[in-house]
C-alpha cells in the first residue's frame, strides 16, 4: 500500500503541480460547501452541527476537535498543495520538502509518505482535492466494509482528513488494519476520549461556540461512546451519536453552526498559509521570517503527534497540544499571505470556489450534487458523518473519462483542464457527469468565444453545480433521529424549514452572511478574551472571518443573474493586485482590507462618489456586524474608473435581487438615483410589469414615445383593464426616467379619470396622491377638477370631519369659485344635512366626473332618504315621487313629458325599494305607493352583492372584471 500510494502520490504531484491553485481552491470549496450548507440551512445545519459534534467527538479521541479534524483534512490538502503548489519544476523539491517536513516533524519520511499514500489512493484520479472528500467517503464506506480491500483507501482518506493523527497512528502501527481498528476504537469505543474531548473543550474553551457547550457535550459524548458498537455498529452508533451530540451542540445552536464553519475555515487558512510558508521556507525564499515560525509549527506538530500517541493511549492532554498547532498555523499564515502571492491567489481561488455551490444552485440545472452525495453515502448509514462527507463527496468522485472527453488536450490551458477535472469530480454518476460535460462545454465555448479562455483564471473559476434531481428524496431518507435534532435546533438564526439538501435560495445568503460575520466577529472577540496561549487562535479566527467574508461576498455576487464570469476574473486580478500592493508588509488587517477591497471591488463598481458612498454604507451594513473592520475603500476608488453603466446596473441588479429576495430589505435599498435611465424603447404599447430590478433602458420608452403612448391610450377603444395596464407602464417609464412635467401630470390625470369612470378607487387614489405632489410642484394641470374630486372623496369616503375641515380650509378663494369645486362643496352640504333632494339634483348636474364619485354615495344616500321618508310620511308616498327624488329617473322634476323615462326609473326604484325591504302597496289608481309605516320597521340595508371578505369590493378581481365591461 505504502509504495503504491507513494507512487501515486508522486504521479499526483506531477499532475497537480500545476493544479496547486486549483487544489487550494477546491479544498476551500469543500469546506465552504459544507459550511455554507450548515449556515444556510437551519435544520440541516443543525444536523450538521450535531454530526460535526459527533464527529468532533470521534475525532476528539484523537484529540482533535472535529473542526480540526476537518481542518486537518484541509490542511492535508493544503499540504498537498504546497508541495505541489510550488512550481512544478520544484516537484522534486517538494517531495524532498515533504520529507524534510516529515523529518522535522519527527514523523519521519515514512510517516508523511503514508499520508501521501492515503491521498494518492484517492487522488489516483489525479484530483488532489478529492482527497478530502473522497477520503471521507472512502472512509465511510470503508468503515462499513472494514474487511474490504478498499479499506486501505478509506484509511488513506482518513489520513487525509486527519493527517496528523493518522500519521501518528501509522507510526504506531504500520499495519493499516490495525490502525483502522484503532481508529474505530478511538472513534466509538473509548469514553475517555470523549471526556478528553470535553476536557479539551473545557480547557481550551475553544473560541468557537462549541467550547462553552463542551461540558454538556462531554457527558453526552461519554454516553455515546459506550453506545456504539465499535466494529459493526457503525450505523447505530451514528444514529445515536448525532442525538447525543445534538444536545450538547444545541445550546450554541446559533453560534454552533458558524463555529463549525469558522474553525474549518480558519484552520484551512492557517494550514494553507502554514504550508505555503513551509514550502517557501524550504525553498529558502523567505528564510528569515518564516522559518522560525515554521519551526514552531513543527514543534507543535511534534508535540501534537506525541499527544496523538498519547491520545491513542487516551492521554488527556492532547487537546492542548492540538491547539498550539492551530495557533501557530495562523501565525505562519500571515507571512505567507504577504510573501507568497500564490498563496494569496490560492485563497482567493478558494473563495471563489467556495462560492461555487452557490453558483451551481443558481444554475438552472439546479440541485447541487454535493448535497446529494452526502446523503447518499453518509446519511443512510451514518447520519452523523453526513455533514463531513457531504461536502467532500460532492467533489469526490472523479470521472476521468469525462474529463478527457471534455478537455481536448493541447487546445486549452492547463488550468482549464484542471478546472474541468474539478468539475467532473463533482459528478457522481454518469448522468451527472454528462450534465457536467454539457455545462463545461458551454462554459468553454463561451470562454473561447469571448477570448477569455486563455486569460481567465480557471483555477479561480468557481465550479458550477451539477444538476441533481433527487435531493428531496434523500432528505426524506435521512435518519429520523436527526429530525428531532433539527427541531431542537430551532434557535439557530439561520434555521430554515427547508431541507438542507435543496439548493440554497440566493436570498438567504445575505442573511447568512450577516450571521456568519456576526459569528466571525464573535469569535474573534471571544478569542481575544481567551488566555494568552489562545490568542494565536484568535488570530486564526480573524483570518477565518476573512475567509468567511470571502465566502460570503462572492456568494452574493454569484447570485447575480449574469454569472459574472468576467467579474470573477476581474476579482482575481484585483486580489492579485492587492496582494502585490500590500507586499510583505501585509498583516491580518491588511488582508482584511484586501478582502473588503476585493469584495467591494467586485461588488461595487461604482461610478459616482455618491454611488460609492452609498455602496459603502451598504457594505458597512454587514461590516458593522463584524465590528472589527475599519475599511479602507481605496480599492473602490481604484475601481471607480472601471465601472460603467452596465456594471452599475448589474450590480444594482445583484443587489436588488438579493435584497428583494431578502424580503426585509426592500426595494428602497436600491439606489434609484443611479438607475435613472434614458429609455431607448420605441414601442408605443408596453405591458406593465412591476419592476423587480433595475430598469433596462432598452425596455423604457423615452418621453416622446410616452407622449404618443398616452395619446394612443386616450383614444383607445379598449377596456379599462387595458388602459390601466398601459397607463401604469407609462407611469413606470416616467418614474424610472424621473420625468416630472406636464406629461406626467397628464398621464396621472388620464389615469385618475379612467379609474374614476370604472370606480377603481385604489388606482385613483394613487394617481390623486401623485397629482397632489405634482401640483404642489407647480406643474399645471386640471387642478380644480381634481381638487373637487379630492373634496368629494373625503366626503364620500372618510367620515372624518377633521379631514373634511382641513380640505375645506385649504381651498383657495379662487378654488371656491370654480364650478366643480362649488359643486363638490354643495354636495358636501347636501350630504352633511342629509338633503337627498339636493344631493340627487347635484348628481344630475355634476360636472366632470364628480358624478362618478357621488355614485359611491348614492346607495347610502338613498337608503337614508327612504328611512327618513318612511319615518316622516304618512300614510303613503308614491313610488314615482321617490324615484324622481332619489334619482332613479333621469328626468328632472320640472321636465314635462318625461313619463316614459320615468317609468324606467320607476321600475328600478321599485326593485330597489323591494331589495331594501320596503313595503309597497298599490293604491286605488294602481299607482305604487310606499307604505311608510310598515316600511319604517322593515327597511334594511342589504348586503352588497359584491361584498368581499377583505371589505373592498373593488379589490376583488372577479367583481372588477365584471364591472369593467370586457
Amino acid at each position, binding site marked *: 500500500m505504502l509504495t503504491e500510494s507513494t507512487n501515486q502520490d508522486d504521479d499526483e504531484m506531477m499532475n497537480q503541480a500545476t493544479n496547486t491553485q486549483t487544489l487550494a481552491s477546491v479544498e476551500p470549496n469543500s469546506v465552504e460547501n459544507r459550511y455554507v450548507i450548515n449556515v444556510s440551512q437551519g435544520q440541516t445545519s443543525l444536523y450538521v452541527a450535531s454530526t460535526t459534534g459527533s464527529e468532533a467527538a470521534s475525532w476528539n479521541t484523537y484529540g482533535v476537535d472535529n473542526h480540526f479534524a476537518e481542518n486537518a483534512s484541509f490542511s492535508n490538502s493544503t499540504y498537498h498543495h504546497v508541495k505541489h503548489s510550488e512550481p512544478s519544476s520544484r516537484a522534486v523539491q517538494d517531495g524532498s520538502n515533504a520529507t524534510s517536513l516529515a523529518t522535522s516533524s519527527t514523523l519521519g519520511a515514512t510517516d508523511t509518505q503514508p499520508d501521501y499514500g492515503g491521498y494518492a489512493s484517492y487522488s489516483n484520479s489525479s484530483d488532489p482535492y478529492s482527497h478530502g472528500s473522497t477520503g471521507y467517503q472512502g472512509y465511510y464506506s470503508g468503515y462499513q466494509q472494514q474487511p474490504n480491500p478498499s479499506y486501505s483507501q478509506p484509511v488513506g482518506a482518513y489520513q487525509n482528513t486527519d493527517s496528523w493523527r493518522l500519521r501518528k497512528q501509522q507510526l504506531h502501527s504500520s499495519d493499516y488494519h490495525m490502525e483502522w481498528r484503532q481508529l474505530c476504537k478511538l472513534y466509538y469505543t473509548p469514553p475517555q476520549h470523549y471526556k478528553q474531548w470535553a476536557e479539551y473543550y473545557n480547557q481550551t474553551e475553544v473560541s468557537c461556540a462549541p467550547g462553552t457547550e463542551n461540558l454538556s457535550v462531554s457527558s453526552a459524548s461519554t454516553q455515546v461512546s459506550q453506545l456504539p458498537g465499535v466494529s459493526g455498529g457503525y450505523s447505530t452508533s451514528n444514529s445515536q451519536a448525532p442525538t447525543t451530540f445534538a444536545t450538547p451542540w444545541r445550546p450554541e445552536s446559533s453560534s454552533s453552526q458558524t463555529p463549525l464553519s469558522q474553525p474549518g475555515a480558519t484552520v484551512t487558512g492557517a494550514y494553507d498559509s502554514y504550508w505555503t510558508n513551509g514550502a517557501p521556507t524550504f525553498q529558502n525564499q523567505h528564510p528569515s521570517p518564516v522559518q522560525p515560525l515554521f519551526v514552531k509549527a513543527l514543534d507543535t506538530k511534534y508535540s501534537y503527534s506525541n499527544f496523538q500517541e498519547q491520545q491513542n493511549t487516551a492521554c488527556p492532554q492532547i487537546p492542548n497540544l492540538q491547539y498550539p498547532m492551530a495557533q501557530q498555523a495562523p501565525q505562519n499564515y500571515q507571512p505567507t499571505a504577504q510573501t507568497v502571492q500564490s498563496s494569496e491567489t490560492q485563497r482567493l481561488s478558494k473563495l471563489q470556489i467556495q462560492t461555487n455551490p452557490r453558483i451551481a444552485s443558481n444554475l438552472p440545472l439546479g440541485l447541487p450534487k454535493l448535497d446529494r452525495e452526502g446523503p447518499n453515502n453518509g446519511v443512510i448509514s451514518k447520519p452523523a458523518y453526513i455533514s463531513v462527507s457531504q461536502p467532500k463527496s460532492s467533489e469526490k468522485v472523479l470521472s476521468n473519462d469525462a474529463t478527457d472527453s471534455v478537455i481536448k488536450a493541447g487546445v486549452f490551458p492547463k488550468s482549464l483542464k484542471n478546472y474541468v477535472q474539478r468539475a467532473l469530480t463533482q459528478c457522481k454518476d454518469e448522468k451527472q457527469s454528462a450534465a457536467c460535460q454539457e455545462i463545461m462545454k458551454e462554459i468553454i465555448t463561451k470562454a473561447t468565444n469571448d477570448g477569455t479562455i486563455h486569460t481567465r483564471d480557471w483555477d479561480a473559476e468557481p465550479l458550477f453545480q451539477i444538476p441533481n434531481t433527487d435531493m428531496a428524496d434523500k432528505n426524506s431518507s435521512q435518519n429520523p433521529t436527526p429530525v428531532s435534532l433539527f427541531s431542537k435546533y430551532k434557535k439557530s438564526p439561520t434555521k430554515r424549514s427547508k431541507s438542507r439538501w435543496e439548493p440554497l435560495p440566493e436570498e438567504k445568503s445575505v442573511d447568512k452572511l450577516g450571521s456568519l460575520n456576526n459569528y466571525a466577529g464573535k469569535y474573534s472577540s471571544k478569542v481575544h478574551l481567551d488566555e494568552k496561549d489562545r490568542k494565536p487562535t484568535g488570530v486564526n479566527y480573524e483570518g477565518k472571518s476573512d475567509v468567511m467574508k470571502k465566502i460570503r461576498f462572492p456568494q452574493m455576487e454569484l447570485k447575480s443573474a449574469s454569472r459574472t464570469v468576467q467579474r470573477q476574473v476581474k476579482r482575481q486580478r484585483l486580489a492579485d493586485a492587492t496582494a502585490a500592493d500590500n507586499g510583505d508588509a501585509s498583516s491580518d488587517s491588511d488582508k482584511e482590507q484586501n478582502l473588503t477591497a476585493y469584495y467591494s471591488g467586485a461588488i461595487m463598481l461604482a461610478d459616482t462618489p455618491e454611488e460609492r458612498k452609498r455602496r459603502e454604507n451598504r457594505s458597512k451594513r454587514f461590516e458593522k456586524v463584524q465590528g472589527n473592520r475599519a475599511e479602507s475603500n481605496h480599492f473602490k476608488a481604484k475601481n471607480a474608473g472601471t465601472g460603467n453603466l452596465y456594471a452599475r446596473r448589474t450590480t444594482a441588479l445583484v443587489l436588488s435581487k438579493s435584497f428583494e429576495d431578502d424580503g426585509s430589505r426592500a426595494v428602497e435599498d436600491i439606489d434609484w438615483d443611479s438607475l435613472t435611465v434614458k429609455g431607448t424603447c420605441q414601442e408605443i404599447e408596453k405591458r406593465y410589469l412591476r419592476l423587480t430590478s433595475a430598469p433596462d433602458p432598452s425596455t423604457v420608452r423615452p418621453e416622446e414615445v410616452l407622449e404618443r403612448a398616452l395619446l394612443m391610450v386616450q383614444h383607445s377603444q379598449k377596456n379599462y383593464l387595458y388602459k390601466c395596464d398601459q397607463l401604469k407602464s407609462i407611469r413606470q417609464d416616467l418614474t424610472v426616467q424621473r420625468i416630472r412635467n406636464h406629461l406626467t401630470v397628464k398621464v396621472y390625470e388620464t389615469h385618475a379619470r379612467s379609474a374614476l369612470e370604472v370606480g377603481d378607487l385604489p388606482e385613483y387614489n394613487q394617481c390623486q396622491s401623485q397629482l397632489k405632489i405634482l401640483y404642489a410642484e407647480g406643474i399645471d394641470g386640471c387642478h380644480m377638477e381634481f381638487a373637487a374630486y379630492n373634496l368629494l372623496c373625503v366626503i364620500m369616503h372618510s367620515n372624518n370631519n377633521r379631514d373634511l375641515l382641513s380640505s375645506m380650509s385649504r381651498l383657495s378663494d379662487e378654488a371656491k369659485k370654480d364650478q366643480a369645486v362649488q359643486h363638490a362643496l354643495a354636495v358636501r352640504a347636501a350630504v352633511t*344635512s342629509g*338633503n*337627498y333632494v339636493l344631493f340627487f339634483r347635484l348628481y344630475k348636474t355634476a360636472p366632470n366626473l364628480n358624478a362618478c364619485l357621488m355614485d359611491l354615495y348614492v346607495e347610502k344616500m338613498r337608503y337614508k332618504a327612504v328611512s327618513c321618508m318612511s319615518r316622516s310620511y304618512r300614510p303613503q308616498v308614491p313610488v314615482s315621487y321617490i324615484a324622481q327624488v332619489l334619482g332613479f329617473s333621469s328626468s328632472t322634476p320640472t321636465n314635462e313629458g318625461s313619463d316614459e323615462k320615468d317609468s324606467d326609473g320607476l321600475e328600478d326604484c321599485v326593485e330597489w325599494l323591494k331589495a331594501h325591504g320596503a313595503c309597497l302597496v298599490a293604491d286605488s289608481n294602481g299607482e305604487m305607493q310606499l307604505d311608510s309605516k310598515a316600511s319604517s320597521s322593515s327597511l334594511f340595508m342589504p348586503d352588497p352583492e359584491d361584498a368581499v371578505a377583505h371589505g373592498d369590493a373593488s379589490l376583488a378581481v372577479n367583481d372588477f372584471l365584471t364591472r369593467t365591461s370586457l
Partner: protein
Amino acid sequence: MAYPSMGEAHRRITDYLNNFSDAVSYQDVASLAQLFSFSSNSPPLLSVADALNFFQDANRLIKQSEKFSQYGEILAPLFRSLQSYRTGNLVDAYHAFEKFANAFIQEFRNWESAWALEALYVIAYEIRVLAERADRELASNGKSPEKLKGAGSFLMKVFGVLAGKGPKRVGALYVTCQLFKIYFKLGTVHLCRSVIRSIETARIFDFEEFPRRDKVTYMYYTGRLEVFNENFPAADHKLSYALTHCNPLREANIRMILKYLIPVKLSLGILPETSLLEKYNLLEYNNVVQALKRGDLRLLRHALQEHEDQFLRSGVYLVLEKLELQVYQRLVKKIYFIQKQKDPSKAHQLKLEVIVKALKWLEMDMDLDEVECIMTILIYKNLVKGYFAHKSKVVVLSKQDPFPKLNGKPVNS
C-alpha cells in the same frame, strides 16, 4: 451692547454652574427651573448667554470641577443651546436643547423623588416653544419644519418616564398637555389617543389628583377632540369642566374654552347671553345665536359665510352648519304660532306652500321638493313631531309638543 470682560464672563458662567449644582444638591427646583427657562428671557440668563458667547470655552469650566463635570452631559449642550438661542440660531438651539433635555431626563430618572418635576415642566415647555420657533425659522428658509415633531417624540419619551407609578406620575398630565398642544398644532390629533388612554385607564391614579392647571388644559383639549367627533354631550362635559375649573381671571383661557363650548351648547339647544359673547369677544357667534332665535336661515348662512375661514380653522364650522335644522325648526315653529293665532283649529296643519313662502321671504330660493325634504328630515330627526302627507303637501303636527326642545340632548342623527 457692552460685552463683559473676560473675568466677568468667567464669573457669570461659574455662577450659573454653581447655581445649577447648588439647585441640584439642595433640590431647589425653583432656581433650577429658572436656569432652563429660555423663553422667560430673564436678564440673568441672557447675560450668561452673552458671557458664553464671549467666553467660548465654557466646557473647560465644566470640566474644571468635579462638581460640574458630573453634569457635563447636561450642561454642555445646555450652554450650546443657550449660546445659539442668544445668537438667534434657533434650529441649533433646539438641537442642543434636545440633547440637554435627554441628558436631563436621564438624570431625572435616577432621582427617586419627583422634586425636579417643575424643572421638567419648564424643559417640556421650552422644548415645545423652541421647536415651534425653530420650525418657523426652518420654514422661512424653505426647509421642511420637523422640529416640533421631534419635540413631540421627545415629550412622548418624557411621558413614558412619568407615566408609571410613583410620585412622578403627577407630572404626566402636564406633559400630556404639551403633547396635545403639539399634536393639535401639527394636525396629528390621532396621536393623542394613546396618551389619553394611558391617562384615563390608569386606575392607580385618580384624575383629580393631577394639578388643576393640567386638568383644565387636558379637559379643554379632549373636549375639542370630542367636538371633532361631534360627540356633543361629551364635549359639553369636558369643556364645562374646563370652564368651571379654570382660573376665572384668565380671560383668554376662558375665551378659548367658550369658543368651543358655545357651538356645542348651541347644538344642544342652549343659547348664550349676548353679554357673554360680548364679554369674551366672541361676537362671531352672535349672528348665529340670533339666527337660531329668530329662525332666520339667511342670517345663519351669512354668519357662516362671513366667518367661514375662522370657523373652518377652529373646526366648529360643521357644528355650526348643523344648526341649520334648528333654524328650520324655529322657523316652522314661528309659522305654527302665527297660524295658531289666526286659526287655532287648523294650526297643526302646516301647508308646505306657506313654508316655501316664508323661506322665499328670507331669500332662500327653494322649491317644494326641497322644502318637503327638509320637513321630512325635521320630522325624522324629531325636531318636529308629526307627519308629512305627501298627497296634500301638508305637515301635520302633533297636537302635543309639536316642537320638542332639545334640552341638552343632541339632535338625532
